[in-house]
């Protein structure tokens, strides 16, 4: 189980490859990557992510551990960045290795749903109109009810 909170960019492909290596009893790997999205095509200048050092790692490790136990994962990986990012840059990724595809998908969705509403990250978007904190969505909180 690996949890990393970092300012630096990461290489999703290299991370996925090294995560998948050496688990020949696991038949399925699911990865999710969150990408800085420029909704209005060129309007977003940059995104800045603030987090709560200490609590962030704690929250992510708890979520990752729960997913590992609940779905019998061979391994689980969570990487989340903070600081300044440009449109198109990868913000974070999760990966889950399971014996079968259903478990790998469910575990990755669980990781994302909990990370989204329970890990202390806050996004601020800088556009030509100024800067705004991204508002949380009711549907993100609602997504937790299915687990």
């Amino acid at each position, binding site marked *: 189980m690996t949890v990393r909170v970092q300012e630096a960019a990461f290489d999703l492909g290299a991370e996925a490859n090294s995560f998948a290596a050496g688990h020949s009893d696991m038949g399925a790997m699911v990865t999710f990557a*969150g990408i800085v999205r420029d909704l209005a095509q060129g309007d977003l200048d940059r995104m800045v992510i*603030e987090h709560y050092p200490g609590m962030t790692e704690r*929250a992510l490790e708890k979520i990752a551990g729960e997913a590992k136990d609940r779905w019998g994962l061979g391994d689980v990986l969570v990487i989340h960045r903070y600081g300044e990012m440009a449109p198109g840059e990868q913000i974070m990724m999760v990966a889950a290795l399971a014996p079968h595809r259903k478990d790998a998908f469910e575990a990755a969705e669980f990781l994302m749903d909990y990370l*989204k509403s329970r*890990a202390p*990250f806050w*996004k601020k978007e800088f556009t030509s109109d100024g800067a705004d904190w991204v508002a949380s969505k009711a549907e993100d*909180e609602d997504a937790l009810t299915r687990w």
Partner: protein
Amino acid sequence: MDVLYFAWVRERIGMPKETVETNAATVMELVEELRAREERYEAAFADLSALRVAVDQDLTEFDAPLKGAREVAFFPPMTGG
């Protein structure tokens, strides 16, 4: 007790962290003490439904006890991922 602020709560109060002398028994009592201090605290804590709180780095509720707590943090709902 250390009190931490994040995101727009930090911006409204104007600092990321302060040390507070308090005998507040619950998070809510601490919030009332802070609100009574200055306009910027009142502004930050105006709508508690828009806020989340963590005591010693665990998410909790506003009626949570503060006995033995070292660190309380206030922030908006998270928007990671």
